[in-house]
Each structure stands twice: as C-alpha cells, then as structure tokens.
C-alpha cells in the first residue's frame, strides 16, 4: 500500500490523523494484546452485511477509494469503532503495517533456516574431519541431516505460527 493513497475526502486532511492514530495505537500494543481474550473471540457477526460484502468483492475492479470504503464496511457497528472507520486511511495504514510485519517475520525465519541448511554442504566441504566426528554413535553430518533437521524445522515453524498469530491478534485488537 503505497503512501499515495487517495481518500475520497482528500488526502491532505486524512493522512495526518491517520499517522497520529497509528502511532498512538502502536504505542498501546504492548498494553493491549490480551492474547487469550482475542483468541477466544467468536468471528464478528456482521449479519446482513456479509452478502452485500461478498457481492461487492466479486464486482469489477475497484479504485482505492472503494477499497477504503470496504475497510469501513468490515468494521462492526460499534460506537468507538465507528470513529476509526471514518478515518479510512487509518485502517489502510494498519493493514500495510500488518503485511510488512508478517513479511519481515517470514523472511527472518527463512533466513535463519537457509543459512543453516545451506551452510551444511559448505561445512561438509570445508571441514570434512569435523563433521565426521561421532555423536550418539553417528557421524555429525549424518545425524544433522537424517535426524536433527526435522525437529529444527519444526521449532522454526512453531515460532512463526505463534508470532504471526500474535501480530494478527494485535491488528484485530487495534482495529476493533
């Protein structure tokens, strides 16, 4: 989501409060994050709003203004939320923030994984004596690739799933 979002109401007026709002909200993340409470929440009941939304989503390509309207439509009819919904660019900024955080998280985990996994053949090439040393009766090179790689990958995956979920819960809590 580029910074060139054009709100139907004029970008000048809209962008200012959006940034301020995002900062304020960001500051509150730590305090907010009632992880379990969010996890326990039922999906929002948007009632009759759901089908029109689907129709709308299936419609022809839309401009950004309509996208911002869509974010508004997503928000529940809560008094406090109504205010946020009116600042359409605010939701936009939050969304952009969420995507960036998720991508950064994914890239970090992938980097850890790739450095270690691509490092293995290099270790094998550069330190053949070292990787043939025995551990639990097996050479370390064999132990690493035939056994340890699986729990290692799983641990990375577990970290990613819980952190990604945390980011989404924070996002949901902010928008709500």
């Amino acid at each position: 989501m580029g910074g060139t979002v054009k709100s139907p109401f004029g970008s000048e007026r809209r962008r200012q409060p959006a940034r301020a709002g995002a900062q304020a909200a960001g500051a509150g993340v730590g305090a907010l994050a009632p992880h379990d409470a969010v996890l326990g929440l039922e999906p929002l009941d948007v009632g009759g709003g759901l089908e029109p939304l689907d129709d709308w989503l299936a419609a022809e390509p839309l401009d950004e203004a309509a996208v911002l309207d869509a974010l508004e439509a997503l928000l529940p009819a809560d008094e406090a939320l109504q205010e946020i919904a009116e600042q359409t660019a605010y939701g936009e900024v939050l969304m952009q923030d969420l995507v960036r955080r998720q991508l950064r998280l994914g890239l970090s985990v992938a980097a850890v994984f790739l450095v270690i996994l691509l490092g293995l053949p290099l270790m094998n090439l550069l330190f053949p004596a070292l990787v043939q040393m025995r551990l639990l009766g097996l050479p370390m090179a064999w132990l690493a690739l035939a056994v340890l790689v699986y729990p290692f990958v799983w641990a990375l995956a577990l970290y990613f799933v819980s952190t990604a979920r945390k980011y989404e819960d924070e996002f949901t809590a902010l928008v709500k």
Partner: protein
Amino acid sequence: MSGVEAVATVQVHWVALLAFAGIAVATVAVGVYATRVARTTHDVYIASRAIGPVLNASAISGEYLSAASFLGVAGMVMAFGYDVLWYPAGYAAGYLLLLLFVAAPLRRFGAYTIPDFAEGRFGSPAFRLIAVGFVLVIGVFYMLPQMKGAGLAVQAVAGLPYWVGVVVVGGVISLNVALGGMKGITFVQAFQFWVKVFAIAVPAFVLLALFGSYGTHWEWATSSPPPALQAAIEAGAAPGPEWGLPFGPLAEQQGYPLLFTYSLMIATICGTAGLPHILVRFYTNRDGHAARQTTLVVLAMIGCFYLFPPLLGLAGRVHAPDLYLSGRTDALLLELPGRLPGAALGDVLRAVTAAGAFAAFMSTTSGLLVAVAGALAHDLYARTLHPRAEQRARLLAFRLAALGAGAVAVAIGLTVERFPINMLVGWAFAIAASAFFPLLVLGIWWRGLTVVGAAAGTLVGGGLASAAILYTMCVGDGTAAGTLGSTLLAQPAIWTIPVSFGTMVLGSLLTPTRVPADVNLKMLRLHVPETLGLRTEYGE
C-alpha cells in the same frame, strides 16, 4: 528395472497380497462411505472446509508421502548413501517455506486451485489457462513414478507382470476419486498416512531390536562391512565406505557435486510450495490460522516419518546387499523383510511394508488426480468453456476428468518402467518450483506484480525447467557427462527459479500500468485476519 523380468521364480507372497487387497478394499469403502456426504461440487472440491487441522494434516501428509518417499528414499539411501538425505530433508523443509509465505494468505484468498489464484489475483482468464497447463504437466510428471511404484510393488509381491499393477491400481484409484471426490479422499488419505507411518516404523524397530542400534548399523555399513556387503563392494556393484560421506556416489555422477547438491535442495524446498495437489488441500482449512496450524502438524508428521527411510536404507545396505547385485534397490522395503530370520516374521513384515507401499502410491495418485481433474473440470470447463454450467454438469465433468486423467496416467505409466522413481519426482518438483513458487510468493507479497510479469515468469521459468528436463531425459543422458552444462540441465532448479523470479520482477517493472487496479483489495483479501469478520468465498 530390467532385471525383474528375468526373475521368473518370484514366489507369490499371499499374506502381502492379502494386505494389498485389504488396503484397496478399505480405500474404496472409505471413499464410498464418504460419497454419501459429498453432495455438491463445493463439497467434492473442498470438503466444505469442515475439516480440522489434525485430520487435514494427516490427509496432506498422506497425500504427500508418495512412492518416492516410501519406497524411493530408502532404496536410494541404500544405493547412494549420504547425499540422498537431502531429498527427505528438502521434502520436509519445503513445508516451512509454504508455511512462511503461502499457507495462510492463500487460504484467505479463498481460491480453490492455483489457476484460480492466477486469475483471481490478476483478473486475467488467459493467465488461468497458462496455470492450468502447468498443473497438468506437473500432475502427469508426478503420477508416472506412482504408477511405476504400483507396477513394481505388485510385481514384487504377487509375481505378476508390471502392467497388471499399473492397470489395477490406476483403475481403483481413478474410480475412487471419481466417486468420492475430495471428501472421500480426505478420509482415505488420512487413513493411508497412518498406514504408511506404521508400515515404515515397525520394520525399523524390529531391525533395531533384532540386530543392534543405529550406530552399530552405521559401523557395519561403513567401516566394518559384513562379508556379503564386502563381496558386493569388491564386485563393484555396491559403493565402498565413501557411501557414508558427503559428495559421494550420487553427487559424483555430476561433475559439480556442490552445485548439484544445492540445486537439488532448492528444487525440493521450493517445489513443495508449488505442488498443485498439495496447495489444493489448503482450501479445506477453516481459516488462515488453521492453515498454519495444519502446516505445523504436517511438519511434525512427515518429520517423524522421514526419520525411518534413512535408517532402513542403512539397514538394507547391511542386510540385503544382494539387491546391489540385482539392481533392485528401489524395492528394498519390499525385499528387506525376506532377509530377516524367521519365515513368519518375514511374511508379516512384508505384508506391512506392502500395505504401506500400496497406501503410498494410492494416496499421492489420488491427490494428483483430484488436482488434475479439478484443473480440467473446474478451471477449464466451469470457468472457461461453460461458465453457466450447472452444479450437476460440473460434478459430472469432474468425474469424467478424473477417469480420463487416470486412463492417461495408466497409459503413460506403462512406459516408464525404465526410469528411477526419484528421478521423475525430483523433476516434478523442479517444474513446480520454477513455474508456481515465484508466482505465489510475489503474487501474495508484492503489490507491484503485473499480469504481464507474472505470466512471463511462469512461462519462462516453468518452460525452461521442463525443456531442460526433457532434454536430459531424451537426449542428454546428463547423469554420466559431468560437464557444467549437463549438471545444470539434470537439476535445473538452481537457475530456472531465479530466472522465473527475475522475469516476473523485470516484466512488472516494465509494465507498471498493468498493476491490477484493485490490488489493494486483493491484498486485503490475502492478509486480513478472519477475526475481523471478513469472509470471502472466491469462486462460487
């Protein structure tokens, strides 16, 4: 497997044959039972999204662990040693990349198939057809080794000709898919996953209990070989102690072992996230978070599974070195039980591994058939040819496509007896990694991707990978030449994936006006968590 026809004295292993029949009957029974639940096209394709993470993960793992994983990895470890360990590690680690960049957004986008994603993300029906083409290529490539596994297993267990296994197994699977669709397949595959885990773990534990620890087997396989193995090594049929070292017999076939190893890893790691029959299963998750949880469970399941094939390959080298001489290492798991002391134990274990092998090629072929039939019926028929087709007509199209694709797989499967199982599978991964992995990653995370760039990258990457592989298969005999060129053609992923990514980025930067006007909306659909109450069911 040229040596096999010569073995006219293969005896019929009745217990194992019974296990075969039992798995086949159970498979059909579960499928038929599930048919009662599968009513609409929606149900058949995605099982109403009513499937929990553990059941879904069992099904994905069941679908994923093919003849290549069940028979091929152990056999290849026995044949080539350490370097083969990259195959299962890459097969498993592919799910990590799938999890990091694809699983949750793809589920949230709500498309049934990769072609759905291609069109839905860019609003281009033409792009859908390109994607359909590669789904079919990958599906066929991947079905061939399964057919070979079927022929091989029936041969080893019943002494019947190769073609009997291909035709019978292909027929049973196609019928089952046509009747039950994905709902039946979900339960069938979950069931078959557990059959496979059991079938690979039990022989491993029996071996360890009978003969000695993992480390003891390692000593026998490398530094202190038993007489039969020593004889096979001296006869030149089995590799020597270099078997257990990196850059051993497998990589040595290529002139550039490190390059070959890296290319292989990249193909298997990126390929998983581009396999159409695996991705189609992510739509059966309740929501994006459930898709992630499912992937996590899958990683645990296949991680446990892959602990066993290397151990069994090691044991095969020690206890069944005669397979080196007959060149039948691919059938190791079916042959190993016969080498154990005690005829009854051997019979029972052979029945167990035969059941596992049957479940392996059955479940993967089923998943591939669903993906291929889905591409034909859903993407080609319902989306392109007959957009106004009724529910009933679509369902009929799916069933006919499943039967037709099954017939094609059987027909081609009859001709691939001469190719090693893992060779074909590795190539299917390379094509998937080059055609679909860049499309998914950039399509999900980069709003600047245009339809021109995406289509060009898919065509160039997938096309180059397919061409390199076809060249190696038909013209180049790349395994023996050992030049830089032949190494790069024999496992092209290391250059075709970057070329695909590069083409997509370059093509998109050159056509900035073709960024979809509704790209923000697409990004919302890909990334907004369901807890906000947004529900979109694209495609219906």
